[in-house]
């Protein structure tokens, strides 16, 4: 209690940081933690032994002569994108480039990256080198390979050790710099070692799977360019940050991030073959009419004096939106009417001075423009021709389904949670039934239903792709679980918060949007992230219904190629690695997010 110093009247509390635990020298640390009692000594020896045996088993599996690693190396392209045509590979790299640019930009805008002490970096390198040495001794290498790997491990250890020894106590380095150096080393190694090169196959005569001079042949040049683009974007972001206000910059970068997946997927990767005549005669006029009429309507509805009449109009718009399904018309018009209805219903929340109203109307124009553009792009036939029913597969398909499911199920789940905690009985009962119903069905049942049965329930003329219907089914499933996670968060918001919001005269939407949800979502970050990781990993169930995701390709397709008959273990190990890397990155990101919002500290 002596650390707390309460200075009475003002109510300010100053808290001294807890005393730092003194660092023990290595030998004492080992004695303290590993060999402190006979039982601990036994545990240390036994677990070390088990770890060594496991390591030896894994390494002798990986480096055994029976392993057909050529099957993984040759089929990397199949595993990543299934059958994306090689002359179109530029498109894939453009997408990667956009993601690198956005990452670099965001790093600069959010001022990301902490600093790490050089000493810590040194000790990390030291232990990495030692681990490499131990693994080398365990692996069934030839003597020359053993010597080479021992030299590499020892070199890394020595470098790390000298960093520990000779750098100052408080000398630090930006984590970003360290990451860039590590990436640069990895990319540099592409220029020296030909791994990832398509013609790199072990047991048979090297056969290049791509034509010389095409982007598909090699990854070394594109990756180098990507790294440079990322670094350039970072410095560009730094320069822009000086000139533009923080809020505007952050909102626009976030908007680009949200628009990027559909835009890259449907415009860049899918390469729609736009019929310009149709676009000019039909799509653009529809957008213009809706933008103008909608903006005018919303500007009028957001007047503080709109009152009950405004609500009636919003309700009529919603009814027209639903009624539009009774008569044949373009889908885009139905979508736009429904969207306009949502904007009209939430208009009173954004009522205010002229500037706010103008902004709200402009927001409508932006949203309707993006919607028109996406619907047009999705409905235009693709020029990318691949065997199979969808233009990508492998890791790309896994990521596509995971990202779209997560993005769609988030708003849906939040709405369901709000509905379930609502005081309106109809919404509450409907949401509760939906959640309990969906949670009572296994995911694989839903996937099979949506892939095989769902198309049969659609009207005769309506067509929906298998991937699209699976995303719909998976999103419904995921949103039910997500809703329960969010509901937990909602219940943690105390009554006082609700009452305080009511006391200052907030409407229910305002209270929910600005007071309750931010607090509820902050609390539910850990379950939400584990839900996202779960969604990503459970995409592997797609393999059972025969979608060409990474697991299906690794387990069913590659082991059945004449050249690589029976090479299932190698590819499954590779798939494990890919899943682990991606899931681990997600949990790392969530840890950073938790630290940022101060979860568990406040």
């Amino acid at each position, binding site marked *: 209690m002596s650390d707390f110093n309460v200075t009475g009247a003002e109510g300010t509390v100053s808290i001294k940081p807890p005393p730092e635990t003194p660092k023990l020298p290595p030998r004492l640390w080992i004695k303290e933690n590993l060999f402190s009692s006979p039982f601990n000594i036994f545990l240390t020896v036994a677990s070390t032994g088990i770890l060594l045996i496991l390591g030896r088993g894994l390494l002798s599996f990986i480096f055994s002569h029976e392993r057909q690693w050529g099957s993984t190396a*040759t*089929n990397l*392209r*199949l595993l990543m994108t*299934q*059958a*994306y045509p*090689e002359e179109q590979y530029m498109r894939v790299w453009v997408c990667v480039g956009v993601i690198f640019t956005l990452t670099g930009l965001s790093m600069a805008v959010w001022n990301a990256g902490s600093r790490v002490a050089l000493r810590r970096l040194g000790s990390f390198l030291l232990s990495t080198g030692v681990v490499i040495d131990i693994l080398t001794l365990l692996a069934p290498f030839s003597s020359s390979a053993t010597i080479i790997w021992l030299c590499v491990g020892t070199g890394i250890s020595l470098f790390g050790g000298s960093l520990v020894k000779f750098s100052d106590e408080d000398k630090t380095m930006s984590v970003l710099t360290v990451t860039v150096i590590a990436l640069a080393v990895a990319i540099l190694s592409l220029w020296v070692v030909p791994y990832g090169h398509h013609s790199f196959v072990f047991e048979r005569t090297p056969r290049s*799977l791509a034509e010389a001079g095409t982007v598909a042949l090699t990854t070394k040049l594109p990756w180098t360019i990507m790294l440079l683009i990322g670094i350039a974007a970072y410095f560009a972001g730094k320069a822009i940050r000086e000139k533009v206000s923080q809020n505007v910059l952050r909102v626009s970068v976030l908007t680009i991030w949200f628009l990027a997946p559909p835009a890259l997927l449907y415009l860049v990767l899918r390469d729609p*073959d736009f*019929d310009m005549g149709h676009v000019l005669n*039909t*799509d653009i006029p*529809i957008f213009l*009419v809706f933008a103008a*009429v909608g903006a005018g*309507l919303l500007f009028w509805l957001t007047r503080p004096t709109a009152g009950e009449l405004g609500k009636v109009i919003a309700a*009529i718009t919603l009814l*027209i939106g639903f009624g*539009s399904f009774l*008569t*044949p*018309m*373009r*889908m*885009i*018009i139905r979508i736009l*009417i429904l969207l306009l209805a949502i904007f009209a219903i939430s208009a009173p929340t954004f009522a205010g001075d002229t500037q706010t109203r103008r902004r709200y109307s402009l927001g409508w124009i932006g949203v309707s423009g993006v919607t028109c553009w996406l*619907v*047009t792009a999705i*409905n*235009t*036939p693709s020029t990318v021709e*691949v*065997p*199979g*029913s969808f233009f990508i597969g492998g890791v790309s398909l896994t990521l596509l389904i995971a990202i779209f499911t997560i993005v769609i199920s988030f708003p849906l789940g939040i709405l369901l949670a709000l509905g379930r905690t609502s005081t309106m009985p109809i919404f509450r009962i409907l949401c509760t039934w939906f959640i309990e119903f969906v949670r009572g069905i296994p995911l694989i049942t839903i996937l099979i239903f949506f*892939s*095989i049965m769902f*198309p*049969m329930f659609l*009207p*005769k*003329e*309506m*067509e929906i792709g298998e991937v699209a219907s699976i995303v719909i089914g998976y999103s419904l499933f995921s949103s039910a679980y997500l809703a329960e996670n969010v509901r937990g968060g909602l219940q943690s918001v105390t009554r006082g918060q609700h009452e305080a919001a009511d006391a200052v005269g907030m409407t229910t939407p305002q209270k929910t949007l600005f007071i309750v949800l931010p607090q509820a979502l902050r609390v539910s970050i850990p379950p939400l992230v584990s839900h996202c990781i779960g969604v990503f990993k459970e995409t592997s169930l797609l393999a059972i*219904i*025969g979608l*060409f995701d990474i697991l299906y*390709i690794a*387990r*069913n*397709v590659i*082991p*059945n*190629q*004449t050249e690589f*008959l*029976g090479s*299932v273990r190698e590819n499954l190990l590779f798939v494990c690695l890919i899943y682990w890397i991606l899931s681990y990155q997600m949990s790392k990101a969530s840890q950073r997010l938790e630290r940022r919002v101060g979860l568990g500290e406040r």
Partner: protein
Amino acid sequence: MSKLFKLLSLFLAVGVVAAACSSDSSDDAGTTTAAPAETTEAPATTAVELDADGSLLDTVIARGKVHCGVSGSAVAFSETQADGSVTGFDADYCRAVAAAVLGDANAVEFVALTASERFTAVQTGDVDLLMRNTTWTQSRDSDLGMDFGPTTYYDGQQLMARVSDGFDASSTVADLDGAIVCTNAGTTTEKNIAEAAELAGADIELLAFETSDEVYETFIAGGCDITTTDGSALVGRKVKQQPADQEWVIFPATPISKEPLGPTYGQNDSVWADVINWTVYATIIMDEYGIGSSNVDDHVNDPGEVGRLLGGEGELQTVMGLSADAFYQVIKQVGNYSEIYNSNLNPVGLVREGSANAGWLDGGLIYAPPAR
């Protein structure tokens, strides 16, 4: 009051726009068939429904592409290659149909299907035909609403064992007494071997695995004495996976089950069925005459059956709704039966000579009705 009036006129305007657009869209749907218009009521570019009067043939010609259902993961029959292309015996017959109908062997869209979804895919029109190691059975032909074309590959379930265990090519199911037999779970192979063993009075222990790879891993490691599946798959595994210190043998010479594999399509569409059947027959007849992709050009003007099939005097292809040179394109671009068989199945150790898949003149079952 004036406000309300303004409002009403606004809705009227929206309504007019919506009405105008909707009439526009119905025009679109009527005129364009190639590109899907931007409506949910998109023209039937992908939906291939069997109309009461039209045949699938017209739909396929209008679409310009054959949607062919394959396995995508069947060794030597339809493999997905590293660059995403589909190759194999079944895949080549898909190409043959495309060459016959559209004149271009590459106008195929391969749709990889699992065993459970293959028949649904035909019923919903996702694929025009199946070339997916589908056995012709009575229940599928009658109950399931499928029709079957001429058998392209006569397969049958066989057994594989180690010579060191005392088995040889003349062993029979009766010799299996007390053996552990590995096979795939949930397939008819499991049922077939159980029935055959019971019939022969042999007492066996069955081990079922999810994938074939697990079956052979266990077999190699000695976890079972016998593996059993279709003969074509056993031969491939023997060629590729037999370790240096083991010798495997396949028996009995007469398979324990009949597995005739061939094209499968929706029932009651004779026009479409004729096209597929005669594409297969054309490859067989040309093989009988020894005419393949390399020498087909020399025989275009031959008299009789060859000339008729290749589009010469008295040809019947135009009657079937195809172009006169339809089967010339098949032979030229894909090849005759022997060429398709040898290029795909020889690499995994399957040879025609002496098997059920030899021509009828050589004592096999491959036979085609005359083209006249």
